[in-house]
């Protein structure tokens, strides 16, 4: 864009309109510049001004005249179609077009800054040792690898270099208010970049950070917010008195109602209200809504925190150095307490207070309860609860991210090689424990938690049920689309795997399910400098993410092969019929157990408090009006429909296969 100096008559108009400049010669303007819409404004330092005619929409239906009014502008570049009014100090900013800035105390860049990029936060371990520099393109996967793979110093050092290289690209003595941004009624914004279409309204203090945003997914910073050393990503809202310090807020996050967080990461679709976080690593879909809930020094994902949830990371010895891992899908009941360090397995419900440092990672879908002051594990109990099924269905529908560039890679499958691998392992452990525990012993202790001896075989049965459901669903998926005259040869072709990529151990990299071998490959690529930048790293991770179905089937085929004693592409008709029959039996059984669990929400106990001034009939009618009837409940109807579909499909495939046999 070409700029020119102000004409004398333009200066004359500006002066007559109450404007002042240290040096008018320091101000350059575009060719079509008009001085008519600049009033009562003081200019200092080098200034560039664009066209200030016309209007810009400040909020829906509210148009503002383009121009600069009653403000102090120092060393800025201001583009076309901008409205700036009542800004006491706007210094060292590039203001792009279509921006509105109104009633702001200070919007300044005071020194060269990377605007939050590269700021180190002490996440997960409050005493340090897992520092992570936050940056604009941080994904949950990169964070997980950087924070948790400290055993590989070469890898983490190279990753740190990449992050610092990225952060340096953001270094500037000029901040940027990008196109479409709206900033109003805010006290202080200092050394902060504001992205396209971001909205900042009523904030108290934003200092050293970036509000990243885009038209499809504006970021919102609202009333009363205090944010220091932070990054907020697109589609997120931080408002209503939230206070954050050294905190990363990922995409689609909602935070507010006086929530306070320090040294904390929140990834995609987290929600945080009322409570407190310190050195928290909140993976995708971590939700905490309640007052008196502290989340500290732990990794969570797909988590829901009951009110009053608490953890301790001190043991009054060497400081706040303890950390916790709660695998995906876990939840805590009201006032649940965990003494760190501990590991809670995936999809586990924690109720009560727990003072032993246990590890239940081998037993997904469990309940951890407090029995007479001791921690007790009921493995597999959470497989057939309504909560687990509803949660697994709701998460993909609640992905609030509208940004076309979604940073966090998220897989949602409830049964997948990572979880099913745990189930297979859990079955083996339960078998071993059952074999060696005498009947005279009521409890067996496993990694510092008690399991009732009676439950060893029962829990194993529930895991085996889940295993048959998984295997059957994967097999029948690969039979979908076979023609009515297909032969066994053609069916076996559907089961064939191209290679062996996907066998072995799987990991959950904060939302991304991956074969451990592929992560090892990625790590080696970083160490060998084959991957040299964050962009290349994210590309590699995306490749792993996109190949999930392929890798998962290789893993599943290998599992089935070991179970039937031959390669899956040599499976017999009889074995295939057995797998489908087992799937039907167990999937229907599982759904029935979930429905039974759901019935509790409609039993007499659930109706307490209804029909307050009436009799039993009134109670029932009141309950029905508020909660509906079980038979018409949407979840119940959906599950019954699914059961019907499973039965139909299984019967159809078995009949077909029996003809082939």
């Amino acid at each position, binding site marked *: 864009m070409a700029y020119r100096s102000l004409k004398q008559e333009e200066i004359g108009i500006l002066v007559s309109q109450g404007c002042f400049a240290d040096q008018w010669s320091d101000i350059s303007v575009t060719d079509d510049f008009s001085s008519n819409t600049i009033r009562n404004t003081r200019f200092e330092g080098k200034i560039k001004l664009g066209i200030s005619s016309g209007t810009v929409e400040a909020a829906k239906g509210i148009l503002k005249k383009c121009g600069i009014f009653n403000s102090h502008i120092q060393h800025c570049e201001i583009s076309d179609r901008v409205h700036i009014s009542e800004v006491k100090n706007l210094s060292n900013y590039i203001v792009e077009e279509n921006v509105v800035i109104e009633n702001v105390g200070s919007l300044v860049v005071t020194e060269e800054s990377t605007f939050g990029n590269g700021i180190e936060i002490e996440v997960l371990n409050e005493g340090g040792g897992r520092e992570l520099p936050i940056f604009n393109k941080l994904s949950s996967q990169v964070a997980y690898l950087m924070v948790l793979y400290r055993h590989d110093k070469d890898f983490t050092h190279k990753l740190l270099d990449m992050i610092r290289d990225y952060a340096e690209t953001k270094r500037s003595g000029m901040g940027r208010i990008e196109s479409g941004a709206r900033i109003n009624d805010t006290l202080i914004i200092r050394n902060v970049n504001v992205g396209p279409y971001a909205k900042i309204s009523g904030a108290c203090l934003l200092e050293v950070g970036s509000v990243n945003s885009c038209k499809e997914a504006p970021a919102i910073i609202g009333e009363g917010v205090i944010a220091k050393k932070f990054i907020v990503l697109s589609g997120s809202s931080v408002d209503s008195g939230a206070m954050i310090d050294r905190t990363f807020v990922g995409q689609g996050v909602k935070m507010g109602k006086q929530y306070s967080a320090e040294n904390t990461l929140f990834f995609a679709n987290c929600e945080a209200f009322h409570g407190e976080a310190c050195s928290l690593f909140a993976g995708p879909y971590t939700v905490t809504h309640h007052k008196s809930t502290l989340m500290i020094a732990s990794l969570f994902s797909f988590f829901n925190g009951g009110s009053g949830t608490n953890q301790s990371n001190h043991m009054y010895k060497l400081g706040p150095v303890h950390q916790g891992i709660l695998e995906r899908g876990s939840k805590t009941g009201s006032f649940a307490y965990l003494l760190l360090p501990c590991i809670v397995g995936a999809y586990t419900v924690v109720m009560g207070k727990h003072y032993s440092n246990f590890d239940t990672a081998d037993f997904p879908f469990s309940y951890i309860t407090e029995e007479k002051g001791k921690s007790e594990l009921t493995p597999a*109990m959470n497989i057939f609860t309504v909560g687990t099924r509803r949660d697994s269905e709701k998460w993909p529908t609640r992905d609030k991210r509208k940004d076309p560039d979604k940073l966090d890679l998220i897989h949602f499958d409830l049964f997948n090689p990572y979880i099913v691998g745990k189930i297979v392992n859990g079955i083996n452990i339960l078998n071993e424990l059952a074999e060696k525990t005498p*009947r005279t012993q009521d409890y067996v202790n496993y990694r510092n938690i008690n399991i009732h001896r009676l439950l060893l075989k*029962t829990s194993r049965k529930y895991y085996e*049920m889940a295993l048959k459901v998984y295997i059957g669903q994967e097999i029948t998926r690969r039979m979908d689309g076979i023609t009515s005259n297909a032969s066994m040869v053609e069916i076996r072709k559907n089961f064939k795997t191209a290679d062996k990529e996907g066998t072995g151990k799987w990991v959950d990299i904060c939302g991304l399910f991956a074969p451990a071998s592929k992560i090892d490959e990625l790590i080696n690529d970083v160490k060998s400098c084959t991957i040299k930048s964050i962009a290349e790293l994210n590309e590699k991770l995306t490749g792993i993410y996109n190949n999930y179905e392929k890798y998962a089937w290789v893993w599943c085929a290998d599992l089935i092969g070991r179970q039937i004693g031959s390669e899956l592409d040599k499976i017999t008709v009889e074995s295939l019929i057995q797998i489908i029959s087992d799937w039907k039996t167990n999937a229907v059984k599982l759904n029935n157990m979930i429905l039974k669990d759901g019935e509790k929400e409609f039993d007499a106990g659930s109706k307490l408090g209804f029909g307050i001034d009436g009799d039993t009939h009134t109670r029932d009618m009141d309950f029905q009006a508020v909660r509906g009837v079980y038979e018409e409940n949407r979840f119940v109807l959906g599950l019954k429909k699914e059961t019907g579909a499973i039965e139909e499909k299984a019967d159809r495939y078995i009949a077909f296969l029996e003809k082939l046999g």
Partner: protein
Amino acid sequence: MQIEEVKTRVKKVTAEVLEMNVSEIADNANFVTDLGATSLQSIRLVAGFEEEFNIEMDEDKSLQVQTVSEAVTFINTYL
């Protein structure tokens, strides 16, 4: 096995799991509404019955049993 013996042993297991006296367990007592069994205790009851009678019960159907007498009838089908 006689049905009375089944009933006696069902009540014995119930008393152990729910930590109550056998005398407090009526024949038609509902495990949840009368005896206060939680979901976790219901699982333990199933496991207890399986071990007591050396049977393996259908997971789905066993959780549908609501009373002591239904449990007796249900278990008897496996004996």
